[in-house]
């Protein structure tokens, strides 16, 4: 309370201003708390999705590496390397952004060319076995999921950062600003009541004095 009294004018105007500020701070606090809750929900939903996606990717990559080993056994390392080098075409990955409650998060989408058929891959079909086709197909399949995983991981990371920030704002309003404003309000109310009492007392004394003067006259 002692600190509340510093730099505060105990006037009715100031009290009115303070009441408006408290009202605004409480509404801001409500909204920020809603934002924090919504962010936490989004965070956990994305985290669940991320876990599932990671398992999918690991499984698909396991299968792809098994197929690669089969291809290596059947075609040999040099043939496999030759096919890899001959494999042509750029993979189109579309990276953009979207917004979740003010948090800018990426959107990563696989464009055309991620999943190709055997004729589009560019290596010789006569000189290679179908094991290379299977391995390529499985890696292409896994790549699509890897992109989705990258997107989900970044979303979770950015949401976690925003939750921290929003939490700090909610706490500073709840535990610092609103109590301080309430304290100031109480201080002004107390001072105004005091002034009122003093005024009443003074008026009483003036009245008594006037009455006494009248009686003497």
């Amino acid at each position, binding site marked *: 309370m002692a600190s509340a009294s510093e730099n505060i004018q105990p006037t009715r105007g100031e009290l009115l201003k303070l009441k408006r*500020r408290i009202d*605004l*701070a409480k*509404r*801001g606090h*409500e*909204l*920020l*708390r*809603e*934002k924090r*809750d*919504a962010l936490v*929900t*989004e965070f956990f*939903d994305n985290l669940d*999705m991320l876990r599932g996606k990671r398992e999918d990717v690991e499984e698909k990559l396991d299968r792809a590496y098994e197929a690669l080993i089969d291809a290596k056994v059947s075609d040999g390392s040099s043939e496999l390397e030759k096919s890899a080098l001959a494999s042509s075409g750029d993979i189109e990955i*579309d990276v*953009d*952004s*979207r*917004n*979740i*409650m*003010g948090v*800018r998060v990426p*959107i990563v*989408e696989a464009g055309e060319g991620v999943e190709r058929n055997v004729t589009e891959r560019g290596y010789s079909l006569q000189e290679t076995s179908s094991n290379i086709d299977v391995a390529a197909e499985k890696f292409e399949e896994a790549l699509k999921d890897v992109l989705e995983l990258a997107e989900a991981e970044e979303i979770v990371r950015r949401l976690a950062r925003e939750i921290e920030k929003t939490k700090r*704002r909610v706490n500073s*309003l709840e535990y610092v*600003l609103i109590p301080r404003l309430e304290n100031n309000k109480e201080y002004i109310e107390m001072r105004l009541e005091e002034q009122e009492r003093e005024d009443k007392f003074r008026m009483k004394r003036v009245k008594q004095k006037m009455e006494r003067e009248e009686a003497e006259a």
Partner: protein
Amino acid sequence: MIKRQIQNLNRHLPKGRVTLENLLKQEKPRVENRDGDSHRFKRRELNYLSEILPPEKHSKLRLPIIIRISPDLGRGATRISGDVEKEVLRKILEKEEEEGEDELILYRPEIRIVRKKLPTTTQYAFMISSTKGEPDERNR
């Protein structure tokens, strides 16, 4: 400072919403936000919406669908307005239409289902009550 924080809560909202019909025609479907950034929609979601809505309503559905969080309804409650928007969400949630319903009121568990299905085609908006029970239009 508080005022600025409240104002900033809705800066991620789009300057204007775009119809599903127009977004389906765009190669990279997106809208511009109030903060100058852009918000990209996932093609997969747009296709899903075009499947659950009859074609004549594609020009009536404006995206993103705004999920309005208004604390005057209680913690975790949201409002959705717009006839086609409400229809879409009711279909997703398998909810019946209530008589005389102006706005669709959804609670957190329902919103989670909606957001899982439509993460890019829905957006949250934060509403401040000007007087008790009356949402402030300036914050839309």
